[in-house]
Each structure stands twice: as C-alpha cells, then as structure tokens.
C-alpha cells in the first residue's frame, strides 16, 4: 500500500431518498442491523467517487451546514453532483430545520460536501441518538 | 390616551395570543384592559398576567398603545384587525402582527415574525428590522390577499411577500427571498435591495419595482421608462419594463432598474 493521497472534498447536492431495502429494513425494525446498514449509506455518482478517489464500501464524511456524519459509499450511475442518503437518523443529522413557514423542512436539495474519512468508521446509531438526549 | 403594556417577561415557551390588543382597548377603563383575554395554548389568561398595564395622558387626543419588553416576539397577533390609532412595538414583533388590519398604524422597532400584515385591507405597518415569510400575504387558499394599506420594511423580507396581492403597497428596503408577489393581481411591491429568485412568478396584474435581481422566463421585455410614477409613487432612475407572467397570460408589470 502506498501513502493515502487525500483528494479535495467534493461539493454536491444532498437528497434524502427512500430505497426498497430501507423500506424492507424499516418493516423489520429500525433497531436491526439491516436498517442500520442501509440508512448509513450514501449513494454517489461513480465519476464523483473516482474524483474523490474512493471505492465502493469506503467510508466518507458528508457535511452540511448543520452537521456531518460518516457513511459507507455506494456507486450510482449518471448523477454527477447529486448524493443520496436514505431517510433515517444519519440523514437527519444533515437536514436543516427551516421550513420557510410551510411545515416542511428541506429534506432534498441541500448543499453538501463529501470528503474522505480519516478512518473513524461509520457514525454509530448510538452516537446519533446520544446526541438527541438532554434536549435542546 | 396612551396605553403602556410593559411585559413582565414571564412568557415561558408557549406563545401567547394577544389578539385583543388593538383599537378596542381605547374604549376601555384600566381595569377592563387588564382583564382582556389572551391565550397561552389552551389556557385563557388576562393581559395583566403578562403585562403591567398603565394609562398615560388619559384625556389626550392621541390614541397609542406601546408594548415594551424583551420577549415581545412571543406575543402573536398584536394589532390584529386594528382599525384606528397606533400600536408601537418596542422590540421584535411576533407572528401575525397587523393581521387583517384595516386602519391605523403599527410600528415595530425590531424584527417581525411570519404572516405579518396578512390579509390587510388598510392602514400602515412599519417594520424597522427584518420581516419574515408571508409578509402581507394571502391566507391559505384565499384567492385575494392584501387589499389595501401600506407595509414598509426597513430590512429584508422572507418568502412569498405579498402573495396574491390585490391592492395596497409593500415596500422592502432590503432584499427579499423566493416568490415575491407570486400570483399577485393588483397593487405595488417595491424592492429597493435585491429581489429573491422567481420574483413575480405567476403574477396576473399589478406592478413590482425591482432594483436588482434576475427575472424568470415568462416576462416579455417592453420599452424603457425614466422616473416612472406608479400608484402615486415616484421612482427615480431608468427602468426596463417587463410584462408577465406569460404562463398565466398575465398582464403584470415588473420594472427593473437599468
């Protein structure tokens, strides 16, 4: 193995999505491994992955103005500049709460940045939930 | 007569609906004013639960209500349905300030929350700070929004300023967010700063005067005009005229400063 060469972060637009696997896992239970695995994934355009110099299953860090999480990356085709994260606690950590007084936060179309991870591993559900305790 | 409402700064988190704070107070005694109902969620309270109420200059001709305190933004519906007199908010205004007002004047020294001046039909609302979303807008589903009066914002405003505007004037000295004047039919909106994206979208009539900003497709460029006068207001400078929004076969006008 050579030195780890870090590519510069990639600016992109985040959309949260429903996936079939997430739907199935949701019905199996949100505390199951299937749910955790599916929801801690980011779908990224193959070319963008190449630019970031990451391969399938690598851990990447996704950051928006409200927070950042580390997710496993999976390739998609022909979606340059758009990343997709299944709806769930990981996505929630990236979503701003502003609704423009409609009731609806922006779950899609959020400016984001993807960078290579320094190897802390996928953000755990416990950590995400832990952040919610104690209130705001 | 001047009615001074000094907040006891005791609103915990639940917002208080103070829709009784309008011209009707002028006809009341101090004791009656203190007993005016306000609502904290499902609890009915009185004005004096949240404010120290005093009356000054009882015999004077002026008709003024002054609100003071640090948490005024937690009071919704101040000046609702105001028909005469003046309300002065020495701080930030809560939601629906000036909702359905038909006359008189409201001055908010600070910023204002959403839905202020909604469905207004007359009078004047002045916001010295920033306004939030749906300023002077139409209520959900209503085919006509603000029908008269004047709103002036010294700062910026949020989304949907003057939606379905059917009369009156809104002046924003700063910038606006998305959809200023969407579906507007009549009246005038002036944006002295930068108009947010999709300004004038789906408008069918009325005029929007814009200093800076980009127009959508759907507006046909007409001639230029110098120092135009619209609805009795004069503007200095050279403006390009646009007509739209063509998607609605609209006959609205946007004047964009050259």
């Amino acid at each position, binding site marked *: 193995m050579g030195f780890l060469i870090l590519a510069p972060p990639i600016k992109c637009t985040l959309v949260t999505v429903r996936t079939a696997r997430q739907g199935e896992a949701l019905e199996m239970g949100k505390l199951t491994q299937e749910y955790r695995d599916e929801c801690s994934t980011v779908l990224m355009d193959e070319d963008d992955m190449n630019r970031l110099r990451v391969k399938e299953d690598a851990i990447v860090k996704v950051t928006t103005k409200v927070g950042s999480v580390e997710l496993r990356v999976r390739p998609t085709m022909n979606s340059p500049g758009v990343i997709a994260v299944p709806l769930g606690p990981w996505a929630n950590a990236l979503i701003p709460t502003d609704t423009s007084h409609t009731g609806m936060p922006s779950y899609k179309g959020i400016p984001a940045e993807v960078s290579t991870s320094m190897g802390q591993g996928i953000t755990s559900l416990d950590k995400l939930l*832990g952040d919610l305790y104690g*209130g705001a | 007569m001047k009615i001074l409402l000094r907040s006891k700064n005791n609103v915990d988190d639940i917002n208080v609906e103070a829709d009784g704070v309008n011209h009707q107070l002028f006809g009341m005694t101090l004791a009656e004013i203190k007993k005016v109902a306000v609502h904290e969620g499902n609890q009915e309270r009185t004005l004096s639960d949240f404010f120290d109420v005093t009356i000054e200059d009882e015999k004077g001709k002026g008709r003024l209500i002054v609100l003071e305190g640090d948490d005024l933004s937690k009071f919704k519906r101040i000046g609702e349905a105001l028909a005469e007199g003046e309300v002065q908010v020495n701080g930030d205004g809560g939601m629906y300030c000036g909702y359905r007002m038909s006359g008189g004047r409201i001055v908010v020294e600070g910023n204002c929350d959403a839905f202020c001046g909604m469905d207004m039909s007359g009078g004047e609302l002045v916001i010295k700070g920033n306004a939030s979303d749906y300023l002077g807008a139409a209520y959900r589903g209503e085919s006509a929004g603000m029908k008269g009066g004047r709103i002036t914002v010294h700062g910026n405003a949020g989304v949907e300023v003057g939606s379905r505007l059917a009369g009156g004037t809104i002046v924003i000295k700063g910038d606006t967010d998305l959809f200023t004047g969407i579906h507007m039919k009549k009246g005038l909106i002036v944006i002295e700063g930068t108009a947010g994206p999709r300004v004038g*979208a789906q408008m069918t009539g009325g005029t929007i005067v814009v200093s800076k900003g980009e127009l959508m497709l*759907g507006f046909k460029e007409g001639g230029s005009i110098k120092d135009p006068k619209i609805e009795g207001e004069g503007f200095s400078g050279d403006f390009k005229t646009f007509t739209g929004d063509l998607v609605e076969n609209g006959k609205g006008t946007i004047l964009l400063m050259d």
Partner: protein
Amino acid sequence: MAEEEKLTNIKPDLTDVTDVTCPFCGNLCDDIHIKRTGDDEAEIYHACGVGYFKFKKSITKGATRKNLLRKKSGDKKAPDDAFNEAKLDACIDKAADLLLAAKKPVLFGWASTSVEATREGIALAEEIGGVIDQTSSVCHGPSTLAVQDVGISSCTLGTVLNHADLIIYWGCNPSEAHMRHMSRYTVYPRGAFREKGRQDREVVVVDVRETASTSVATQFIKVDPNADYELIHALRLAMKGEELPDEIPGTGVIKKKVMKLAQRLKRSKFCAFFFGLGLTMTRGRHRNIDAILSLGAELNKDTKVVIRPMRGHYNVTGAAEVFTWQTGYPFAVDLTRGYARYNPGETSLVDLLMRDDADCLFIVASDPVAHLPKEAARRFSNMPVIVIDPHETITSKFADVYLPCAVTGVEAEGTAYRMDGVPIRLKKVINSDVPSDTDIVAKILERVKEKRGGK
C-alpha cells in the same frame, strides 16, 4: 348475509385470507393472499418486498409487547434502563395526566393507522385543547397547500389504468417507494381502453438522478436539484407557444427536451402525472406543486390530464380526509381554543418544535425521532412524550409512556384511504395480544373526561 356478499370470500377463520389490504404504502394493494401454515408461519402471496416483511414480522410473533413507563419522568439524559413495565391502566392514567397538565400538547402521527383511530385522536385533541398534526406536514403537506391554492385535476388509479396513454413520474421513484404502482395501476396493466397494456403507453420520468424507475422511461429528463419550478414553468411556456432559450436557465435541461415533452403532451389523449417528494421537499416546496397543478389544469383545454401526489404512508390520505370532515382542515390543526385553526408553518409539528411552542407530545403510529431533522428531534427530550405504536421505535426511547398496540391491517380491522382517496377495508388476519390503537386512544379520551369531571 347480504346477497352481494355471497360473491366475496370472507371467511371467519383466519387460516386462509384473500384480498387482504396491505398496510404499508399509499398503493394500498388489496389483493394479498395470506395462507397460514403454522402458529406463526404463513405464506404471503402478491405482496411486494416491504409488504411481505410487514406481514411476516407481524405474523411471526416476537417477544411479548410490554407497556412501559419511564422511571423518572422528565429525566431524558440517557437511553438505557429508563423504563418499568406497567399495567395498561397505569399507562392510560399517566398519559391522561400528562395531557391534562399540558398547555399546548401536540398529537402527531396517524398516517399509518386507521381512520377509526384518527377519529378518536381528533376527539381527544379537541377535549384537551391541543394541536393535532399528521405526517403529511413533513411529506405531502406542500402538495395540499398547492391544491388549496390552485386546485387539482385528478382521478382514481383505475381511471389511469383504463385510459392513460402517457404516464409521467416527476420527482418520485415508484420502483423503490411504491413498488407495485406501475404494475397494478399505471404502466403495465391492460386497461379497458388500453388493451395492449404497456405497448399502449408511453412513460416519462423527470428526476435529479437516475433511479430504478428511470429505466422504465421512454423519455428521461434529468433536471438539476432545486430547479423543478423553472422547468415546469418553461414547459408551461412551451405549451403556450412561447419561444424558449436553447437551455432553460438554472435547470441543466436543453430546450429540445422540453419541446419533445410538450409535443408528447399535446399528442396524448389521456395523460397522468404522478409526483413525489422530489417536488415537495426541495426549494420552492408547494410552489413546485402549484406549477405542475396549474400546468395540468390548463392542459385540460386540449386533452385530458390528471395529476396525483404519490402519497407515502398507507393511510396518510385517510388521515387527511377524517381531519378535514371533522375539523375543516387536512393537517396541522390547532384546537387549543376549542375550535379549529390551520396554518402550516405555524401549526405544524416542526415549526411548533423549533419555536418551543409545544409542551407535550402524543405520538401515534409514527416514528418522528427517526425522521425529523436532528434539531427538531432533540426537542423530544424537552417535554413529556407518549407513544402508541405496535412496536418499540426510536421515538419510544424518548417516551414517558409507551403503549404497544395491535398492527392495524394485520391484527386489527379498520379503514384506510388509498393515495387516490378510495377507501378500503383493512382486514384482520391474526389475533393480537394487545389492544388496537383505536381502543387505547378511546380509553385515554375517556380517562381525560373522567378526570375533568365534565368540566
């Protein structure tokens, strides 16, 4: 038995039930066949993957479901070991106390249970003076706002099946979110006036990325995120014969593609648009829907065009219906002053949470902590929370009272409304060891009334 029911297959014994309605998504497929092969085993036919797991999990009984009370009410610093098992009655009592103590309780959820449960929920909200909201406010709420502004030309899904020659999916991915939508209602089935099924129809997909659904499309238009409004606006202009620039500004879509779609629309005899959260959750929100609904309405001058939001939770439509016939408004209804008021942005869950304008949360058939933005979810630690759900959820970890209930549509009967407003009976296919949420909410309402002594 009434004569018309002789044709149907209602069997009182639950070993072999046909025409079961699937309580997962807004498709509300009602052709599921469940054949019991053992105490907690069954063969499940016709369901999609998600439906299959939903039935399977419910039939395969796990550990006994327990009523839980938080040991130290108000102490939500840590997730673990915080609960005691409790009797149903004690939980109902505690729930009633918490609701009665609140100045502005918010009753949220309702989209994944029956109309019957929601009916009780609205009565409870009215009784205690609370706000009642449903998941629509963070789903297709913007679609409703747009319908309130400009109306909608729509139809039942069977009309699409029988008539449509052009299907347009905009900002949605039915292959993954409404898995049998294309096969049951739109693209593939043969219809009364579309005898060749798929061959008689064209499909257009508009989205910000390629998905499993885009492969079905005759035409795929990839639009830049947050630019749907501009694209629909340009399409409306094209339909009116206005000249467009070579590229539609800000959308990443060239004129040629827009003109091609406009031509298709003109050629179509019956066009059905379906749109999803790709329009409601992005910049512009309800105005994206306003634009597409306005397009649909005006196209009816020349051809027949219908539009449907792809509603997600199986009974989100039913919740809106019962909210509306009882209060006049479909979601985000504030009953604190004894009558209904409505203004999403003020009376909707996320806004109430972010303004700290709520002091108790009553959650039925929903898991908001798993789906709300983090900052909104954190508010669940600030106030009492009551959760009624068939299973423990992420939200129930933040509960002060947790009451398990039967899975509606599997363990309990009820009514649900399909995404097109067609009401369908939910069947019971197995017995439950816990009461339905309808019963639990009704009991809490009764307890609240008792405690108030008819005040």
